[in-house]
């Protein structure tokens, strides 16, 4: 039976003809937040294991970039707000039901911690650095002294930050493509994977390169499993989800999703990493950049495709 729906009298900006409220700012933030969370997780974990000297890229070098990633991400979020002068209202209340609320509070904690963590390692990289004021040395000493408690907080909150980026989207049952509990674990895995890839770009020690190549390969395999599981979930879901999944299975976002996010972003780097572990010479930068690219594409495609459904 054919059904035709005509809507008249409504042509609201960004709502009609299809919902398009969130633009590039949101997926960019989801990506940067996820990758920073991944780096901070590995940094704090390896620090707590007492392996800071074995894995310097993870513990010392890569985290130097996390405050930049988070700040750029937050700036993107601010750009997205339509009433930004009131953004302080986020911090007048904790709303447990709203993922965005606990995301805001998590960022309130993780952002300064990422800065303090990075700052505590600046001297190891630039031993001769001089600061203009005395109190900066006091702060530096303090940051170095509290690395262990910082690492304990970060190891937990980096996971929360990573998974929240997915839960944020999955909490909308009006958007069936997002409304899957797989999205939280998927974005967390993707963030950890991008974090491991970023660590690899800066890694020099053989032992560290080997470990993070293995970790990244494992994460890619988990991601492939989660994506398969997600698609199967849609197909076995409600009418709304079956219809929504069409957008990735023949619809508008089929090629971006399967070629860019899945093929170039997961399968190709996975093959390169297997070859690398078998002793083939692969430039380290290539699979890492592919993984980071795939992680970025995944956020963009899921955010844009989900709004249409």
């Amino acid at each position, binding site marked *: 039976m*054919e059904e035709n729906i005509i809507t008249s009298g409504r042509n609201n900006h960004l709502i009609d003809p299809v919902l398009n409220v969130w633009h590039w700012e949101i997926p960019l933030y989801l990506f940067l937040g996820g990758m920073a969370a991944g780096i901070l997780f590995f940094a704090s974990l390896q620090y707590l294991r007492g392996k800071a000297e074995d894995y310097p890229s993870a513990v010392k070098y890569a985290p130097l970039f996390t405050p930049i990633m988070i700040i750029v991400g937050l700036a993107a979020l601010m750009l997205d707000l339509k009433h930004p002068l009131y953004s302080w209202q986020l911090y007048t209340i904790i709303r447990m039901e709203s*993922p965005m609320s606990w995301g*805001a509070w998590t960022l309130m904690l993780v952002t300064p911690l990422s800065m303090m963590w990075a700052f505590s390692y600046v001297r190891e990289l630039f031993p001769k650095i001089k600061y203009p004021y005395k109190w900066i040395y006091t702060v530096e000493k303090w940051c170095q002294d509290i690395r262990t408690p910082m690492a304990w907080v970060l190891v937990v909150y980096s996971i929360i930050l990573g998974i929240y980026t997915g839960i944020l989207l999955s*909490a909308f049952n009006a958007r069936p493509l997002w409304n899957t509990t797989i999205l939280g674990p998927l974005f967390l895995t993707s963030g950890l994977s991008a974090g491991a890839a970023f660590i690899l770009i800066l890694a020099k020690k053989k032992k560290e390169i080997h470990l993070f190549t293995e970790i990244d390969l494992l994460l890619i395999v988990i991601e492939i499993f989660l994506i398969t599981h997600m698609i199967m979930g849609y197909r076995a879901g409600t009418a709304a989800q079956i219809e929504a999944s069409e957008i990735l299975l023949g619809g508008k976002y089929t090629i971006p999703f399967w070629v860019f996010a899945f093929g170039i972003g997961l399968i190709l780097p996975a093959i390169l990493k297997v070859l690398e572990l078998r002793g083939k010479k692969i430039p380290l930068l290539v699979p890492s950049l592919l993984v980071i690219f795939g992680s970025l594409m995944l956020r963009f495609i899921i955010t844009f495709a989900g709004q249409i459904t």
Partner: protein
Amino acid sequence: MAIDTLKCVGCSDCVVACQVENDVPVGYSRDWIREITVGEYPSLDLEIRSERCNQCDNTPCVRTCPTGASHVVEGGIVLVTHDECIGCGACIESCPYDARYTHPEGYVDKCTFCHHRVVEGQNPACVEVCPTNCMYFGDLDDENSEISKLVRTRKWKVLEPETGTKPQIFYLK
């Protein structure tokens, strides 16, 4: 609210009345008309209905709002406090009816069931102007109200029931 789909002719008076009463910015609307044709010519079935925020009982917009700007007031109407809204768009994404939009001034806006009129004992503007009297507004908790009787005696449906929002606009069939 109850809307009789057998009486609605889709004249859009409700849309215009709302825009005037609530000073809705040009190019925006808080309510709209939907016409659904089912079947193939010549055996067609047409339903016309006036749609707006469903003032849900289980509100995804209030749930996802990070600041508490979206809230439910006594009586069940969902409102947005302009000074608490940061314009993040979470409520717009969460609404299965696409009933919300960002006001040009930055905050999120939507149908209020003309709360300012309701507190004075008047009907919402759309209900007041409807030339076919297809809309009924009242207290569903009062079993003697006209709307309660209609919902008890007539067949009705709500929109997107599968999203679990428990919408409070009943479309009489």
